[in-house]
């Protein structure tokens, strides 16, 4: 186990190093500096700016400086938001993004899994068909379409929720729904198919034969086995939600990291793009690692140290 953890940690560090290197050189391969787009910056100002951000240093030196500062969790200054560092941008956006993200995860677990079980219990009856139809739609319709339609119906037509911002708690409802739409559908579909398979297993028949209560059969014998495939896709789901947050925060005008990211793309704010990409990479890599550890714990058949 310890050996496995150490091995994985080394792999994580190598992965992150590769990602930092890749983003750094990608961003620096763009012709023109970050200030060339600005309208007629006087030469002296341009020079001072270059000097301030060490843009005149040779590329390898900039690269090692950047590596060093990233290792100290310093993602450098933003080129377009004056006087802001990327760290400050992330810190400003994190509470909103994290809240929307965590609420979505909660919704997926609390609603998605029971729906899947419910559909599996009613296999091929109308509730199952209905739920699976909705879930198929949820998987196929892109999040930005769901988001804009929700915004149109519930905020603009019915006026039940605010159209933008999160000053009131109601402001979270639609973004969370839109963000979790895909994953919710995916999880309920997966739970359903995996539970249906589990229900046909011999140990389930044994449990019924022993005369256990149905709730106990489902929860203790069914879920424990049926949820294993669901745990494996948590990593990709978190990734889907991270990228989903770009558009959701744009649609609902939430002051989160995703919107800063999209804005920095439009503004060509290279340090911010780099910084937020690396931030996302770290989060993802860590989450995937934790999920792998949990996976080993809940499924004793999986040997982590091979």
């Amino acid at each position, binding site marked *: 186990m310890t050996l496995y953890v150490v091995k994985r940690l080394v792999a994580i560090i190598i*992965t992150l190093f590769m990602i930092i290197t890749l983003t750094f050189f990608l*961003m620096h391969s763009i012709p023109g500096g970050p200030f060339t787009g600005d309208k007629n910056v006087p030469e002296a100002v341009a020079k001072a700016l270059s000097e301030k951000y060490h843009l005149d240093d040779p590329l390898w030196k900039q690269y090692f400086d950047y590596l060093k500062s990233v290792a100290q969790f310093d993602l450098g200054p933003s080129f377009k938001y004056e006087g802001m560092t990327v760290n400050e941008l992330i810190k400003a956006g994190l509470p909103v993004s994290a809240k929307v993200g965590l609420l979505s995860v909660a919704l997926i677990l609390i609603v998605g899994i029971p729906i899947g079980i419910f559909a599996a219990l009613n296999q091929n009856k109308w509730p199952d068909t209905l739920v699976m139809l909705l879930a198929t739609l949820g998987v196929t319709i892109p999040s930005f379409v769901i988001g804009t339609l929700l915004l*149109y119906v519930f905020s603009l037509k019915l006026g039940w929720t605010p159209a933008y911002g999160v000053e009131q708690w109601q402001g979270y409802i639609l973004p969370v729904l839109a963000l979790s739409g895909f994953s919710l559908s995916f999880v309920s579909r997966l739970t359903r198919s995996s539970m249906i398979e589990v229900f046909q297993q011999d140990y389930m028949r044994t449990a019924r034969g022993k005369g256990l209560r149905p709730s106990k059969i489902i929860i203790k014998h069914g879920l424990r086995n049926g949820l294993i495939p669901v745990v494996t896709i948590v990593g990709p789901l978190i990734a889907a939600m991270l990228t989903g947050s770009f558009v959701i925060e744009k649609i609902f005008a939430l002051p989160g990291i995703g919107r800063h990211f999209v804005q920095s*793309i439009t503004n060509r704010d290279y340090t911010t793009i780099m910084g937020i990409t690396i931030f996302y990479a770290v989060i993802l890599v860590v989450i995937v690692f934790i999920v792998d550890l949990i996976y080993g714990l809940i499924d004793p058949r999986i040997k982590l140290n091979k």
Partner: protein
Amino acid sequence: MTEKTIENVVAKQQPSIDPTLWGKLPESEKDEKSLSHVSLTYWQDVWRRLRGNKGALFGLIIILALILFALVGPLLTNHTYDNQNLSTSNIPPRYDIYKVGEEYLYLHKNMKLYLTKSNGEIIRVLEKDKEDMIKKQLIYTVGNGTAIIDYSTKNTLVLTDENGKVFGEHKNVSNKTNLLGTDHLGRDLLTRIMYGARVSLLVAVVAALVNFLIGMMYGGIAGFFGGKVDNIMMRIVDIISIIPLTLYVILIMVVLNSGLLSIIIALGSVYWVDMARVVRGQMLSLKEEEFVYAAKTIGTKPLKIITTHLLPNAMGAIIVTLTMLIPSAIFMEAFMSFIGLGVTAPMASWGTLCNEALESIRSFSYQLFFPAIAICITMIAFNLIGDGLRDALDPKLRK
């Protein structure tokens, strides 16, 4: 056993049956063909199963219709995707017209008054005679009468005559010149959706090609050679796949600047990873089969073994993966365009259309609905085909 003894046995077991009933049929009644049906090839079998799947057929029809829509559609309209006409901007697909004297008028939300024919076809936008700032009225001369736009009540426009009598709607008509209306620059929405379909289909084709060429070869080589080669190649894939593809595509798009070519390059450079994994998995099991050993024994070159012996046998899994990847590539393009990294203006893609419509969603929601519906239908159709093909190619997977 002779015939005699069989007859005896039968007679003993079932004495009620008259033994004379048991006899040989004449040779002329022999009908071998009706018993042994024609054996189907693998692909004929797949097609037979696919045909039986209503969802997949439906999806197939939609995709064919979409291809027709994208390729032939733009030839049939007399609009272009970039022809701007600011005087007829934001005209919805259906609107009310009023009858004033002998003339027909259409009152637009942007406080414009259009002269229309009786069937609702817009002739031209009318110039106002004067504006009464105090009463908040715009005054127009129509034919030999007058029409007044009254905007004194907030958020509502009323069309009245000179005595303040409100005109009732004459009838609700559909837009004859622009079937789905126009966007904020007066461009025909239907034509733009057609061009958007072209972009989406092009992306689908490119994603399929990239997966076929790069993904299949990469996975094929890694799986066939195994050992160190496999280890190194798969670690590279692992590193690539930890970060969501969307982030790579965004980074590459930022570097290359937006545009259709950039989308294609961005998709092409990272989009083969899933396929590589699937093909490698197939290779690992297939390469232990006898026919591969046979090919090796007669000295066939590795590349030839991969392309002529291994890949065709892995085709089922490859096609299933492909049908899953194509809609996600279409989605990726729409996503990129939606956050402003897609095709460059004035070119239209469904993502940019949605993005542009988002700004005016309050007043002109129809601009959002049509491209959104187009995306949804396409995604659902591709997914239906994907599910159908998966069931048809590998019935064991069916649940």
